[in-house]
Structure formats: structure tokens, C-alpha cells
């Protein structure tokens, strides 16, 4: 086990099980390895912490829980980077942004492709998509008591 400092305190992690971004994230190309942190609460959210930069942490979620018609199929280049074949699983993940006004958006214009087989991930830019990098979360109805 190794330890890193983060904005949220010390994190202990297994270097063998980090999530690898062979190209980094866009604008963070040098940060390749992230620790996947489970959310303390139930739900579809989790977060990742860079092992190299204590400041770099992202909230992620599965966009298909909210947008049923949202589909991204990796192309040949992307599959090669992920180290997977056409038959292997590839999940779509979205980066979540919390604005200073606490509005919450998902970046559907640049999803993260995740290959569980190789534990690799790739952020891709969808060219000519109608999906916004600032897609608001669909309204959720208040809980009925």
C-alpha cells in the first residue's frame, strides 16, 4: 500500500489497482494514475484522486442513469488506447462539475470511456454532438414521505 496527500486528507491506496488514463484528462495530460474513491453515501457517484497532484480530484457518475439515449461507442484508436477488443466491455462515465453557485452539471460532450478489463480510461471529445459540456442534471422530484 502507498499513501498520498489530497485536499481531503491522507489516502492509502494499492498502486496495483489505480485507474490509468494513458492520455490523462484533457488539460491534465500529465496525470495518468488515479485512485478510485467510493462515495461514503449510497448512489451513483464516486470520485477519483490523482496520485501525482493532491489538487486534482474529480467527481464522476454514470450518465446513462439519467440519459437513457446517451451512447458512446469507442472507435479503433480508443479501443487500442484502452487495450480492449471489440467484444470487451466499455462503460461511459461523466465528469461532474459543481459550480461556485452549487449548480450541478455533467460533461456529456467529453465523456470518459472506462474499460474494466484493463482498468484504463480515456476522456474523449465528441465532435459535432448536441450534448453540452454543461448538461444540467434532470430535475429530481422531492421524496414523498
Amino acid at each position, binding site marked *: 500500500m502507498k499513501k498520498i496527500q489530497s485536499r481531503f486528507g491522507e489516502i492509502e491506496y494499492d498502486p496495483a489497482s489505480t485507474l490509468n488514463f494513458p492520455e490523462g484528462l484533457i488539460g491534465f495530460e500529465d496525470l495518468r494514475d488515479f485512485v478510485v474513491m467510493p462515495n*461514503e453515501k449510497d448512489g451513483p457517484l464516486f470520485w477519483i484522486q490523482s496520485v501525482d497532484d493532491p489538487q486534482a480530484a474529480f467527481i464522476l457518475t454514470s450518465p446513462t442513469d439519467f440519459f437513457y439515449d446517451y451512447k458512446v461507442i469507442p472507435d479503433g484508436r480508443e479501443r487500442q488506447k484502452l487495450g480492449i477488443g471489440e467484444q470487451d466491455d466499455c462503460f461511459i462515465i461523466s465528469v461532474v*462539475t459543481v459550480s461556485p453557485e452549487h449548480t450541478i452539471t455533467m460533461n456529456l460532450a467529453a465523456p470518459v470511456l472506462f474499460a474494466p478489463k484493463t482498468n484504463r480510461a480515456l476522456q474523449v471529445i465528441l465532435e459535432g454532438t448536441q450534448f453540452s459540456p454543461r448538461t444540467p442534471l434532470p430535475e429530481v422530484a422531492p421524496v414523498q414521505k
Partner: protein
Amino acid sequence: MLVLTRKAGEGIIIGDDVKITIIEVKGGGIRIGIDAPRDMKVHRQEVYDKIKQENQEATQWDMADLSALSNMMSSGRKQS
């Protein structure tokens, strides 16, 4: 920066395998054709910059945000 003047139909070769062709110049816009290897990413500058900025902003959160967000999402889910 290298600056070149090109006309419609003319092109530029970059390295061994990138070829850029000026397709059409019309109404203040220029249509450009790009032949590049499949493993080379090609993006419009403003699209790339926007994603970069969005990623920067996405690092600006704290645990209270995550907690509030989780509560909001799980309350939405119990409806279905």
C-alpha cells in the same frame, strides 16, 4: 509561428502523414480537409479549450458538495 498563404485547392503537408487541404473559402469561413492517422486526435480549438476549462472547474468541489449531491440523487432514485 510559420505563416503560409494558400488558395482553395492548395494544401499543406505536416510531417510524414498529415495533409491539410483548403477546400473552400466562402463568406469569412474556410473549409479545411484534414487527412491524418486515426490515432491522431483532431479537434476544433474552441471545443478543446472549453473541455479543458470544464475539467479545471470540475476539480473545484469539496466533500460537502459530494454529500449534498448524493442526497439529491438518492432522493430522486427512490421515486422510480
